[in-house]
């Protein structure tokens, strides 16, 4: 408490960074209107993405990760959801006020997205090659034939054997891993500046997951795209991301370079996530005593209505009086390490105790 950390508006590492941020999200609030009330799926999230970096976005289901991604793409279903506040700046363009036609020119071209479900994200009645060609023809004004040739090239790049034959096949003739490769081909076809991957490996077989991640990173290197990787798998984050943002109940609770986050998690929720990962070496070391994994008690709270204090307080073993009164401000605890917790500096001692 003595150090009185200055509450900073989150432009993390923005000052020191050699490259300017390609994407600046600030104060994003996306709410959904349902019969039960207003769901504040994203409630004041700020983040920035630098050119060429990989940013991990983690949290349990229902923490607002996907909604953040969809907000950036402006794909929130208009019937129920709405971005009520905030700004999303992409390369000096404010996306939230962009006309639909201009937004379409950005989608799939400069910002593209890979979805979680490769099984249903491809149109079942369209040949795979044509689906890749669609994005190319749309954004690069290529004639059909040239776009199809490019599509076959993309299939080669994503390492699909016999790309020319596969391009003429329908999605159901491909395996799940191959379909996700096709999704990557579609996403990368126009060499986007930003690739948003929403749990790209969750629906895949474990043996395929690593291949798909490697492929994604390889494609990212090839095009120099910045990647925003949404996942609840911290192992994936550790292997791929440079920076991590931890989200909880529609808010950012911690943001740090990946090493710092794993070494010194400053938010109790992050700590909880980390201790709930099974570890081979640890299991071997003290298998006798603790067979059970640590879990975070409780579930993500309903995001309907106003929450008094910190949203994590009800599940937090270290919650104090202050936590139940007001949501903690985001403080920069170390360079580039931002945390929203009243007890962030005391956490190490509290854990030891």
């Amino acid at each position, binding site marked *: 408490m003595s150090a009185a950390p200055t509450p900073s508006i989150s432009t993390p590492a923005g000052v020191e960074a050699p490259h300017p941020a390609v994407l600046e999200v600030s104060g994003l609030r996306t709410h959904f209107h349902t019969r039960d009330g207003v769901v504040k799926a994203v409630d004041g999230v700020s983040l920035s993405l630098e050119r060429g970096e990989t940013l991990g976005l983690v949290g349990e289901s229902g923490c607002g990760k996907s909604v953040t991604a969809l907000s950036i*793409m402006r*794909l929130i279903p208009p*019937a129920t959801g709405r971005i009520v506040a905030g700004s999303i700046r992409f390369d000096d363009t404010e996306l939230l006020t962009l006309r639909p*036609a201009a937004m*379409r*020119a*950005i*989608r*799939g*071209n400069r910002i*593209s*997205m890979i*979805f979680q*479900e490769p*099984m*249903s*994200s*491809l*149109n*079942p*009645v*369209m040949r795979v090659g044509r689906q890749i060609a*669609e*994005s190319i023809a*749309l*954004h690069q004004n290529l004639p059909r034939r040239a776009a199809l040739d490019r599509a076959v090239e993309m299939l080669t790049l994503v390492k699909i054997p016999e790309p020319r034959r596969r391009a003429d096949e*329908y*999605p*159901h003739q491909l395996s799940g891993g191959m379909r996700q490769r096709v*999704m990557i081909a*579609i*996403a990368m076809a126009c060499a986007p500046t930003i690739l948003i991957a929403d749990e790209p490996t969750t629906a895949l077989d474990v043996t395929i997951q690593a291949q798909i991640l490697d492929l994604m990173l390889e494609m990212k290197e090839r095009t120099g795209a910045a990647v925003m990787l949404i996942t609840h798998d911290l192992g994936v984050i550790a292997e791929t991301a440079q920076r991590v943002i931890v989200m909880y109940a529609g808010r950012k609770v911690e943001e740090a370079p990946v090493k710092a986050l794993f070494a010194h998690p400053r938010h109790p929720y992050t700590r909880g996530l980390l201790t709930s990962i099974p570890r081979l070496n640890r299991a071997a070391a003290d298998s006798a005593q603790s067979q059970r994994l640590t879990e975070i008690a409780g579930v993500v709270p309903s995001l309907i209505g106003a929450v008094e204090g910190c949203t994590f307080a009800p599940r937090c073993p270290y919650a104090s009086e202050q936590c139940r009164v007001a949501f903690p401000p985001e403080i920069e605890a170390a360079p580039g390490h931002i945390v929203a917790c009243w007890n962030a500096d005391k956490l190490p001692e509290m854990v030891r105790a």
Partner: protein
Amino acid sequence: MTAATATSAIAATPIAREGFVAFVRRHPTVAIGGLLLILIVVASIAAPWLGTVDPISINPAQRLRNPSAENWFGTDRFGRDLYSRVIYGGRVSLIVGLSVAVLATVIGLAIGLVSGYLRAVDAVVMRVMDGMMAIPAIMLAIALIALSKASIFIVIVAVTLPEVPRVVRLVRSIVLTLREQPYIEAATAIGTSVPRILLRHLLPNALPPLIVQATYICASAVLIEAALSFLGAGTPPEIPSWGNIMAEARPYFQLKPWMVLLPGVFLAVTVLAINLVGDGLRDMLDPRLARRM
């Protein structure tokens, strides 16, 4: 769901691969219905070369003859050759059936796609459709023909109008299901525009059930045309159609029943053939249904 839709997409390819005999064995209804339909269509088109005479040339000396080697189905009360009239009459039925099926499907498809995808349009359009559905085809046709002069075109319009809402409802319900599919979201995410999503992504997925619906519309249009002609509100009397041949023969039914029955048989077989094709296509395009039956 996805697997089933996907299979329907390639339903066309196995035909070429497995050969004609295997196709007939696997889909007997389509084969039988298709064969009958082809026979009727060919007969109508090739009517002048099938031993017919001018179907409207009057020969009062030869009135109401029984079937003979010269007049296979006999003659009517003006001495016109009944066989020629029945064969030529098929043209009207098929033209009306096909035109109505195509028109109703195309119009209904366009309205249904837009209405299903854009919610603002939906509320208004569907109420209009409800209103249109309330109009009986035969009443509408009689009213239209009372206003103008009888022609095949008017019959087509009158039969098409009440069929459109049925197609709209079908297409709309399909679109409402499909629009929630992740691949539609994925298509939006690559910057695809609304018209393109409708035509390239939604339309092909909606096509199989729509084709089936079109065959039913075709069959019902053939029947309604016959009914209208029978009532004298359809095809003008100078053009032979199965409906007006039967209407003209009605007074002689007890003496010469074949005058009514023969065109009736042609009508029934045509409608049966179209329905068989429709049923068969439905089973073919929806593998889940076929297995259950």
